[in-house]
């Protein structure tokens, strides 16, 4: 079945019919000499005016009372603090890549802020603490306005009418969630901005597909790669836009591979290589570059030290850890600290009771426990089991076999195959008088980070004490012994030797003042290659991110997001009864999810109909509906579906990029439903040096607006505006509301607003 079956095209065969949209063959038009590359669609002036208006309106909704509240709101706690760390150049750790936080820091730097404020808790006052918070909020707010501009231009470049473009942009600027989220000191507006930029650049690139390898083609291809990398450099969520672009490029390449396109394999490989360069190699470099800057700025020791390996920490200036670290030698009396539960390895003269409550029997040996405060009973002497020279001090190395003598009682640490008091599966740890049961008192020193120097040292090298005889590790956990053990913490031999919590850290050597010794030695700052630093940080970011599973009262499941079942309380103030409750524009969100349903329904019906040999939709319309609206749908899906598979705690604001994409899709669906036809073709065919597109004659079509188009757009915008204004007290955090008003604003009974009682 060919696409020019006259029966189905009946509607628009007559190009001379001036009043209605026309559908003609460009070849024909060309012969007549009337074709100018782009059909006579809307004038640029119409677009410019509309863009100016939505931008202005966007400025109003975004910047309205941006100084309110003058208090720390929700995640400003984190991101304001992080910006401060850049300004103080102290090392910190966060699960997100650095770009957006550096942008905030740059804004702070220009404003003369020195990073002194700690953004301690939600509700801390900015004015009292002298923080230029309005300036800081200006940056994300400006990005939000730019998002509106981008949305307009994405729709415009995709060939939609002025009305559709304005609708999409206006829906976004009247979205309560976008306004609430994107004018605060957080990362999301940067994320959405770069995400939209990527889409914009890709569309520009795609439109130049008939002018391959021209300067503009290269520019937009590389711009896509760079903005894509910027998105990922803001948050790892940027990978979703990378996925989208990846899918589009694969589809594109598959089309290029088609022999009907007439490319030789050599030409195809040229296309392939150009994309590999611009979309893989360049983005990787950009992403690495921001981390390079990150490490270059943060050269001083700070709160993030403890998240990193000790080798990394040694590269930081004023590293506290380096000042405290001393190598351990045989004969030293040390204190061992368990970092996970914050206790010190301890022993005292009390014995394990003969019989426990559950009837099991102990060895009645001396108790070994964990205590919160180090005392004299926490010193352990490291004794060699090999010959060491008497004259000089021999350091303890990785894999050495040692004995640990409890200094206060003169007994050796021992563990054996007797069930521990609280955990029958693990071994009891006790001590033994000198010379007895020698083989069971031997422990192997296993250093965590033994590739960077194998000498055991305090504060630097955590150690696992592996029992040589029974292959268990000395371990403790957050459980206290009953009365007979003075409520001290249970220590036992752990059979699961791979567990990270088996590691202990030596914190002190008796009689040695580490700071003094180190001051005299003047250790120099060590170097570590950038790539090593990068991989270490990246690995720890990912691990930490997946570890964010602690339940939060405002977390929600992805399925509830598009329906706005629940928002997030960002901030509230008791005396004025004001609150910021992050929630989307209920009207717009429900309408957009309806748009998805319409899209799916239309595509399904079309597929079924075509299967039966009927082609109900005109080719240019269908083409646009698949390629342009399809791109928006994929964007929405890739920004939404992956959350279903994520294990970490999730929040409504994770849906914001998807909600933004959904407005793009809504625009496309609006055009399909309410505007007759589409401006087509949208990609310029001329100016190509390539002769093989000469045979390519797309059908031409012009969109025609009727009064119903305007009416529909007006009603949609009215609904959006009404809902926006209604919810605005929750979005801007002002004015305060009475109980009655709060209850009124509970659109769904599941919303947990403050001050509802």
């Amino acid at each position, binding site marked *: 079945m060919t696409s020019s079956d006259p029966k189905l095209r009946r509607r628009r065969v007559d190009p001379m019919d001036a009043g209605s949209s026309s559908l003609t063959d460009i070849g024909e038009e060309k012969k007549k000499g009337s074709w100018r590359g782009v059909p006579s669609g809307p004038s640029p002036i119409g677009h410019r005016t509309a863009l100016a208006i939505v931008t202005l309106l966007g400025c109003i909704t975004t910047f309205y009372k941006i100084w309110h509240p003058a208090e720390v709101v929700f995640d400003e706690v984190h991101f304001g603090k992080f910006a401060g760390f850049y300004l103080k150049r102290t090392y910190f750790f966060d699960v997100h890549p650095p770009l957006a936080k550096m942008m905030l820091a740059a804004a702070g730097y220009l404003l003369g802020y020195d990073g002194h404020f700690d953004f301690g808790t939600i509700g801390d006052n900015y004015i009292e603490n002298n923080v230029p918070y309005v300036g800081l909020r200006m940056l994300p707010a400006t990005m939000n306005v730019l998002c509106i501009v981008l949305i307009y231009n994405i729709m415009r470049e995709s060939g939609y009418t002025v009305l559709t473009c304005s609708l999409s942009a206006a829906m976004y600027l009247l979205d309560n969630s976008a306004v609430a989220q994107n004018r605060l000191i957080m990362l999301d507006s940067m994320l959405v901005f770069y995400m939209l930029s990527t889409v914009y650049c890709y569309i520009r690139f795609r439109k130049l597909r008939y002018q391959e390898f021209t300067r503009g083609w290269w520019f937009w291809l590389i711009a896509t790669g760079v903005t894509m990398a910027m998105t990922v450099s803001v948050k790892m969520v940027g990978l979703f836009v990378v996925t989208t672009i990846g899918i589009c490029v694969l589809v594109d390449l598959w089309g290029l591979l088609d022999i009907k396109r007439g490319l030789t394999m050599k030409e195809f490989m040229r296309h392939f290589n150009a994309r590999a360069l611009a979309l893989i190699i360049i983005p990787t470099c950009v992403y690495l570059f921001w981390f390079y800057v990150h490490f270059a700025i943060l050269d001083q020791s700070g709160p993030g030290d403890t998240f990193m390996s000790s080798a990394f920490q040694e590269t930081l200036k004023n590293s506290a850890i380096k000042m405290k670290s001393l190598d351990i030698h045989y004969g030293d009396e040390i204190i061992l600290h368990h970092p996970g539960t914050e206790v010190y390895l301890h022993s005292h003269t009390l014995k394990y009771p003969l019989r426990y409550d559950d009837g099991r029997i102990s060895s009645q040996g001396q108790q070994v426990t964990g205590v919160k405060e180090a005392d004299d009973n926490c010193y352990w002497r490291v004794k060699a089991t090999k010959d060491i020279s008497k004259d000089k001090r021999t350091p303890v190395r990785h894999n050495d076999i040692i004995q640990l003598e409890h200094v206060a009682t003169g007994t050796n640490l021992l563990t054996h195959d007797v069930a521990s008091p609280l955990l029958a599966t693990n071994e009891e740890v006790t001590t033994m008088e000198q010379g007895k049961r020698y083989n069971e008192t031997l422990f192997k020193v296993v250093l965590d980070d033994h590739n960077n120097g194998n000498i055991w040292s305090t504060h630097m090298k955590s150690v696992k004490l592996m029992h040589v005889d029974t292959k268990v590790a000395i371990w403790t956990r957050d459980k206290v012994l009953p009365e007979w053990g003075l409520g001290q913490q249970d220590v036992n031999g752990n*059979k699961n030797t791979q567990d990270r919590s088996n590691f202990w850290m030596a914190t002190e050597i008796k009689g040695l003042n580490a700071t003094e010794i180190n001051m005299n030695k003047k250790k120099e700052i060590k170097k570590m290659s950038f790539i090593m630093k990068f991989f270490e940080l990246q690995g720890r970011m990912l691990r930490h991110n997946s570890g964010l599973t602690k339940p939060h*009262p405002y977390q929600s499941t992805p399925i509830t997001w598009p329906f706005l079942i629940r928002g997030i309380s960002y901030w509230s103030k008791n005396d004025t009864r004001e609150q910021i409750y992050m929630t989307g524009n209920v009207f717009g969100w429900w309408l957009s999810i309806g748009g998805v349903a319409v899209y799916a329904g239309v595509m399904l019906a079309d597929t079924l109909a075509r299967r039966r040999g009927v082609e109900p939709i005109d080719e240019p319309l269908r083409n646009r509906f698949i390629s342009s609206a399809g791109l928006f749908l994929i964007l929405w899906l890739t920004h939404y579906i992956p959350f279903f598979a994520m294990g970490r705690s999730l929040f409504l604001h994770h849906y914001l990029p998807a909600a933004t994409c959904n407005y793009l899709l809504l625009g496309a669906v609006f055009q399909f439903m309410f505007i007759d036809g589409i401006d087509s073709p949208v990609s310029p065919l001329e100016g190509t040096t390539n002769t093989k597109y000469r045979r390519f004659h797309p059908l031409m079509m012009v969109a025609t607006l009727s009064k119903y188009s305007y009416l529909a757009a007006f009603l949609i915008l009215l609904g959006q505006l009404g809902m926006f204004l209604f919810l605005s007290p929750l979005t801007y955090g002002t004015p305060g509301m009475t109980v009655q008003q709060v209850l009124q604003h509970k659109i769904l009974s599941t919303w947990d607003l403050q001050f509802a009682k």
Partner: protein
Amino acid sequence: MENLKRRHITPDVHQQPSPPVYEQYNPATLIDHNYGDEKNKFAKPLPPQQRVVYSSNKYIAFCQKYHRALIPAGLTLLAFWTRFRQIGLSNIVVWDEAHFGKFGSHYLKNEFYFDVHPPLGKMLVGLSGWLSGYNGSFAFESGHKYPEDVNYTGMRIFNAFWGALLVPLAYLTARQFKMSQRASILAATMVLLDTAYLCISRFILLDSMLMFFTCLSLYCMTVFNNCKNEPFSENWWLWLGMTGFSLGCVLSVKWVGLFVIALVGLNTIEDLWEMLGDVQMPKKTYAAHWLARAVCLICIPTLVYLFSFAMHFLVLYRSGPGDAQMSSLFQARLAGNSFERNPLDLAYGSKLTIKNYGYGGGLLHSHVQTFPEGSKQQQVTCYHYKDDNNHWIIRPPRVIGNPQDYEPENGNVRFVKDGDVIRLIHPPTGRNLHSHPIAAPITSGQWEVSAYGNETVGDIQDNWKVEIVDDLVYKDKERVRSLTTRFRLRHTQLNCLLSANNVVLPQWGFKQIEVTCDKRNRENDPHTWWNVEEHYNDNLPPAPKNAYKSKFLHDFWHLNVAMWTSNNALIPDPDKEDILSSTPSEWPLASVGLRMCGWGDDIIKYYLLGNPAVWWPAFASLLVFLASAGFYLARMQRKIHDLSNAQWDHFLYVGKTLFLGWFLHYIPFCIMGRVTYLHHYFPALYFSILMVPFLLEHWTAKMSNRTQWIVFGIAYVSVIAVFIYFAPVAYGMSGPISNYKGRRWLKSWNLVDK
């Protein structure tokens, strides 16, 4: 498909003269050129029947003539020999025999029990016990020796029988996929000689039945697909119905049957989609196709599944360990239940157990352990087993009225009415059921429910109002009656409803169900409804016999929800390392094995481990298929056609079906949160095994016959040789395990202690 059909480049390229003898089947000629292309099929006459020349030797001729029956029969005999050989060697309860043997015993004793799996497999285990003369008296404790009177060998043989049938099924399925005999026998040999299949089939477990029904479903589906050209014929109906029946059976053995249902479902959708494109097909015929599939692939499996539960309820008519999982009314009809002597009407001072009415609801429970967060008071949960910690006593409320009014001392009682305020005290710990405005531990949107204070210490937050929903037998709402009255408990202070929503607590709550006070006030949610189950009051007479019966569908659904909840609770415990469990990523390359029993020198040891010569090629074949399909597609995009349309369609059909089968049986385990074990991979493995001979044949099709024999010869020899070397892991290893340390090919196998 439409495009592919239109292209028909060289349709008749393989119309070569038929090979003279049957051994020389060329896979290309075996494929019907018109396969899946119905229009052409009717346009052209079928190619003439191959003339088969029989050998002059009468024995060989006999074999040639009856090879269709002889080969499967031979394979079955071999399978029986490998499966039944030394089956009773280990006379102790091995691995999960402890569970499934015990469940089988329950059927023989007719005692109601609860398990996360549907009943069919366990009923068959029960049947095996009955057939071998076992009376159900043995407790099947793990590692214990079977007593003299338990014919465990018979039970194991019954199970192994199903496992053995996999072998002929693999052969027949491969034949249905139009593989040559050489390739089909290779498929069967790989199934026959896989040590993991062998090992798992030889014990009293469900896996052999699960595997059998899964493979049977695949077989039926392939036969049905080959009947496509004669729709609504007798054969067509038979195999469609058989597919539905075997799907129902898989699902009734274990829920993983859903995966093979998904496979058949996708196949059906594709089939219907193909037909939708056939504009000439009358709409009535098309509707009939839909209807036939709905009846055979939806109704039949559902009926089989329901029937297995109906049998389950029918056989288990006595009270047993699983009672508390079911609704109180269901329990009331079990013989020997614990509340036959219950008084009817509730009064202040009554001791009772309270059951959540929602599907899968448990008994209100408390124990001395406290919440680790929130109020840190004593935990209140829902629990599915009966013990004294489920008991509660109705006491007068705090502050309201004089306690004397509620519990008159002279032996009189005051009955509990609709709207009465009560306080519930937990006798083992003396604490009161209590709620307060502190977020619940998991469902943090609701209030926590705890047990707090004692008889004298406490506050007004101990008060609960009884709201009667209805009574199933008596129409009035006057009194609360045990079993039949459904009521809500409303917290008088917070105005929220006591509810349990099948949310499982972590290890600190012993995986019991979270109880919250639901402030959403969903009065019609059965999870906020409760009923009294056991009821003790010395001052009241026992109730008349209750004739009310719970409905089958209600019980069925209740049990399924309970199974689902318990299944979800089987999540790995981060505090405990389980050496038996493994992660899905370890399976395809057989990089993990499973010790099925103790590892002492004096025990016969079984190690569940795949035959590397089967598992490794099986996994590789999946990748080879993907690469081949990609290769062909890219070449076709460049208009280079390596295969004729019919060949490509066939290649795609077989490869796609097998790959999807593997994918659907494997990937869900990666997403699932629950504990996974090596044997979960076995159904997926079957699909990948069939892929090996298929691809071997596909890629050697153009080579000389000699080369083909060499390739297949290598495959046969390596499978057989590696099997012989590894056979002891499945047949039982006696003596010290260090004798076998040479077989530890991979470091990750814990065959030998480190």
